[in-house]
């Protein structure tokens, strides 16, 4: 997309074409909750966006050992329309263009979901266009959606940016129309063919350990972790200490343990004693999501894979951000 001075823009807004209805269109009265959710998983430049009639899911993975997902249900939006038929048509038109073999798709009874790979960092930069002077859009923010959990400098958002989002299908741009105080910004983001998502198959194996902890306690634990340590060990046990997080680094070792107190740990069960180690740098990626949430659910499956699920309150609803981590394999485990 090179800037060409003489080009005449005929279509500024995201709109339906009379012949081809747009596959996906949504509106937001305030971009803030969306921005916060995207920032929670915004540590990679690209994300996979899955669009269905249930909402949007943004998936980001790193090092084949971590997958993060932000779930944006339709209730987060003031308007949400996913036209499955239009999506299916766009997808098959794109396929026909590629395959050129005239194969006809059988009519699908089930809904077709759309997947598209987007420049997540640019999406966040566009959504925060009216945020005013401050840090860049991609830095994971410690802002809570509920004002009481705000930490760090508060960005002064005068008024709210409203947004309209649209997408027509593969081979087209992801479109945004933002407005604040009478100023309108139209953004087009390049899209890419979705690459197969890394699937750590957490649900495939039985969950052997689970607990729900108030996020503020988990935040304290994360703050204590020694960043010079390569790994963090997480162990859940049926006996004391019930829940333990520890690091060993250049500066020594740190350890946080939790009693089995209802005020702290909730919904606790442990069918198998296990201590697992995970790469600390990856675990720390969830700090943003943790900062926004009020409760965190921790689950470990039989293979030692760890899943954090963060409950993030918004004005209308509760949203979720999840992280799955593969355990580090010890040299002497083999």
């Amino acid at each position, binding site marked *: *997309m090179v800037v060409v*001075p003489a080009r005449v823009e005929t279509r500024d807004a995201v709109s339906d074409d009379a012949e081809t209805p747009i596959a996906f269109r949504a509106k937001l009265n305030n971009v803030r909750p969306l921005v916060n959710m995207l920032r929670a998983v915004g540590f990679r430049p690209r994300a996979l966006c899955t669009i269905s009639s249930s909402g949007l899911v943004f998936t980001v993975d790193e090092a084949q050992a971590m997958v993060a997902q932000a779930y944006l249900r339709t209730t987060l939006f003031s308007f949400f329309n996913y036209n499955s038929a239009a999506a299916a048509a766009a997808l098959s038109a794109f396929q026909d263009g590629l395959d050129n073999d005239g194969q006809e798709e059988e009519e699908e009874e089930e809904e077709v979901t759309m997947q598209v790979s987007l420049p997540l960092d*640019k999406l966040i*930069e566009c959504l925060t266009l009216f945020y005013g002077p401050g840090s860049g859009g991609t830095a994971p923010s410690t802002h809570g959606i509920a004002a009481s959990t705000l930490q760090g400098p508060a960005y002064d958002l005068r008024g709210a940016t409203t947004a309209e989002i649209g997408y027509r299908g593969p081979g087209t741009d992801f479109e945004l129309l933002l407005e604040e105080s*009478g*100023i309108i910004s139209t953004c087009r983001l390049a899209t890419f063919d979705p690459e197969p998502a890394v699937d750590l198959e957490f649900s495939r194996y039985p969950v052997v350990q689970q607990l729900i902890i108030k996020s503020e306690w988990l935040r304290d634990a994360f703050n204590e972790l020694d960043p010079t340590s390569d790994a963090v060990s997480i162990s859940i046990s049926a006996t004391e200490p019930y829940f333990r997080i520890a690091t060993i680094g250049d500066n020594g070792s740190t350890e946080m343990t939790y009693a089995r107190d209802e005020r702290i740990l909730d919904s606790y069960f442990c069918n198998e004693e296990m201590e697992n180690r995970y790469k600390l740098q990856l675990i720390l990626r969830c700090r943003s999501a943790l900062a926004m949430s009020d409760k965190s659910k921790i689950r470990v499956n039989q293979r030692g894979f760890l899943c954090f699920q963060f409950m993030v309150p918004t004005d209308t609803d509760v949203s979720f951000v999840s992280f799955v981590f593969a355990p580090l394999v010890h040299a002497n485990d083999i």
Partner: protein
Amino acid sequence: MRFRSLLTSSTLLLRIVQSIDKLSKSAILKLTPEKLHIIVITDVDSGLQLWSDVSISAISTEYRIESAHNNEIYLEFSIDNLQRALKSAHGALQTTLKLTKKQHLPVLSLIIQNQSTTGREITLTQDVPVRVLTPLQMESIREPMVPDGQVHVMMPPLNSMRSVAERMKTMGDRVAVSANKNGELRIRVANDMVDITTHFKGLENLSYDTTQQEPLSAEREPAAFYTAVVDMKNFLRFLQSYHVVPKNIVCCIIENHALVFYVYIGSSGYGAGSGSGLLADNCGSLTYFVPVRQV
């Protein structure tokens, strides 16, 4: 070579110098029998240039200038130094500007007369070292000649444009600035990942009566945009330069040539009037030239 001026108020000069503070380290003070100009040239070919003028009658009562070169004097000075000196003169009873020598070096002296709390008069002198330009150097300082612009529009509040432009700068190093005769202005930045256009509407257009207007057949309809593509860096430099009142600034688009911004300063040193009343209370003006980016 002589220069001496009794200023009625140093405020206007202070406002201009404050406006250019972030543009450059040094600037040129051009003194003529009728006007006083402050000029900043960041890069002769591709950079932003700032040309300002103040009519002598607006700021001084006694004015004397003599030189071997048309009674014009060009002085190069550090913006920081002059700004500090003018700040000391703010609110003074009387300030005299004088070109003189201290320890064999040329300085622009500000002789500031104030009254202390006890009623006694205090005189404070601030010296700003200057370099006097030679006739040859003077010849090379020329205001850019630009063709007439196709469209003139009042800028929206600079604060909002500045913060949006600062956010857009990460998307590209050039920005297309366009305006039409329907009060719309837009800025666009694009790279291979993202293309953003920000639109400002409801702005006032100005029409300058020039004898060299485009023949009617070549004129575009009101809604059509005229565009100048400039370096984002230069555009931001203009937006970030301190303006006392960030409104009443005229944007002129000279397609394929330059963006020119006119800031009018009234007698108080603040923005002058609005819209058509701009030129009436005009004591001085700042003109920013932002050249179109050479491909």
